[in-house]
């Protein structure tokens, strides 16, 4: 399987809950996002593991992929739903993050998906390029995990769960 789905198993409550991690500043409850999911595409296994774990502690359902093609494949097969927020590394193998963003944004199903670009290169050109391909935010690595959770939580609150596929529909986008 090329993706993982971080659910909220029984330990993600009580003493395991996000309130007891360092992400104290924002602790969403289990139902806050009404099934909206976050997708991360990053070739770094360390980043994927860190985000899976920290988002799970914050009760943010997350799918992760090592590259854009794996994500597109899973989306087209309906293995994962269209995410409300996509965290996208720019330097990806097989297909650059910009191309992934442009491709996804050209699909109607992704109209409401908020794309946040992640990169280790904090240059102005990267920011401009990110805007061109439809990204709404840009986060430079290394980032503070708590900052990333705050950004994603704010974006999820902006995205109504009942609006289009950005609300976490499980229907595969049929033209991908």
């Amino acid at each position, binding site marked *: 399987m090329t993706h993982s789905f971080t659910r909220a198993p029984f330990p993600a409550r009580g003493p*395991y809950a996000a309130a007891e991690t*360092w992400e104290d500043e924002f602790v969403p409850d289990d139902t806050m996002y009404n099934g909206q999911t976050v997708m991360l595409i990053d070739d770094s*296994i360390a980043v994927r593991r860190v985000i899976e*774990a920290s988002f799970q502690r914050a009760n943010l359902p997350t799918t992760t992929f090592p590259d854009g093609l794996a994500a597109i494949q899973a989306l087209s097969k309906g293995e994962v739903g269209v995410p409300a927020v996509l965290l996208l590394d720019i330097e990806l193998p097989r297909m650059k993050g910009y191309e992934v963003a442009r491709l996804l944004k050209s699909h109607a199903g992704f109209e409401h998906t908020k794309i946040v670009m992640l990169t280790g290169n904090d240059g102005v050109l990267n920011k401009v390029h990110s805007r061109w391909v439809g990204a709404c935010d840009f986060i430079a690595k*290394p980032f503070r995990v*708590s900052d990333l959770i705050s950004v994603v939580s704010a974006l999820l609150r902006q995205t109504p769960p009942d609006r289009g596929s950005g609300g976490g529909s499980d229907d595969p986008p049929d033209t991908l």
Partner: protein
Amino acid sequence: MANGSTFKSNGSVFSGRLDEFRLVELLQMVGLQPNTGALHLHQDNGRTGLIYFDTGALVSCAELDTEALTLGHVLQQLGYANATQIAHAFQQQTQDPLGKRIGERLVDLGIIDQDRLIYALKMQALWTARELGLWREGMYEFHPGERLAPDSASPRIDSTHAIMEMLRYEHEWESLEPYLRDGMRTRLMMAAQAPLDHQLLFDPRAWLIISKVNTQQTVRRIATTLRLPELDVARMVEPLIQQGLLIPVGAAGGPGLPEEAERLSMRNFDLFTLLIGMEQDWLKKKTPMSQLIALAEFINSTMRSLEESCQLTGLTLAPDTLNVILGREGLVGVENYRFRVEHNRIDTDEFTAFCKQVFDGSRGAIGASKSFYDRCSDILERALGAAFESINARIASPLERAQNQEAWEALFLTFRGEQAPAG
């Protein structure tokens, strides 16, 4: 297995509901075979219990609750130590949070001996297990292979012994349960006025209990202050409730850790942000020498973050913490070179000079350089892992511990240039 049970097993983890499969039955299943792993119990109200097994023997049992039974409670209830002595040992803990555990400190201070420590740890596990055995609802999940950090003082309790004690306790608790519904965490208060027909003549021990109710509130705390086993105190409390002198007013505590353990826990240590920063630094290091120096610097930055994290909770990291970690793991140097470590920092200038000397000395001999790089990076990586491990051992939640370890192991894959397995 009970009919209609949600018990399921996929070969690695089994889980189900406690109303269908009770703890005492689970213990029979897990403990009567040479299983190693952890049994997690969880209730909807957030209460969590953890029981660790090592080759079939119960080695630890704890509840993640602010009013959980601690070693300090047990030592006082057994009359082995008093509150002042335990406070003194705890004060030492705050000066060296990654060093010895509180029981070992009490042994070092000559307050208890090793036998008493092991007996008290055994009682702590047994008394907690018998209380968890009373749970009638909630979930259980067995995690094979999950272990606690190694501890020389871990008791080993035969599962049959634990099962017999749980059954005996359950039987005895039947008569106490109507009065102490929340077990040893039951909060008590004095009746606003004495019952009219009560002559107010008390057994001296009953008076002792009454005199502690206002300040200590729970059965467990009263027992600890009186230095009496809590079951004995529960037995003494029961008639006082029956007579209308004391009133049970719900349960104290909630999900979390007891106050002292909470202060010593490393939960606010931001490991993930540290790992993300390390990866970004690593990707900029292109030469073998710069990578080795980066690894040494990562150890230093981990210790620096740890110091900052300790300061936030009023703890002080002992200046020899890194030396102790490296020494314990046998990672004090590479070949004939010993890392110079002062105040929890590796002297990276000296280490850089050493690396330069080795790489310059083996100029042209690619095999020798690579061999040195492999040995050195292995030692530094293990040292960094040992530092993470020491911090992780202070995290109460096994789920968080496992996630932390998975995250740093993923980073180590990057260090080794290995292809990451998919999500």
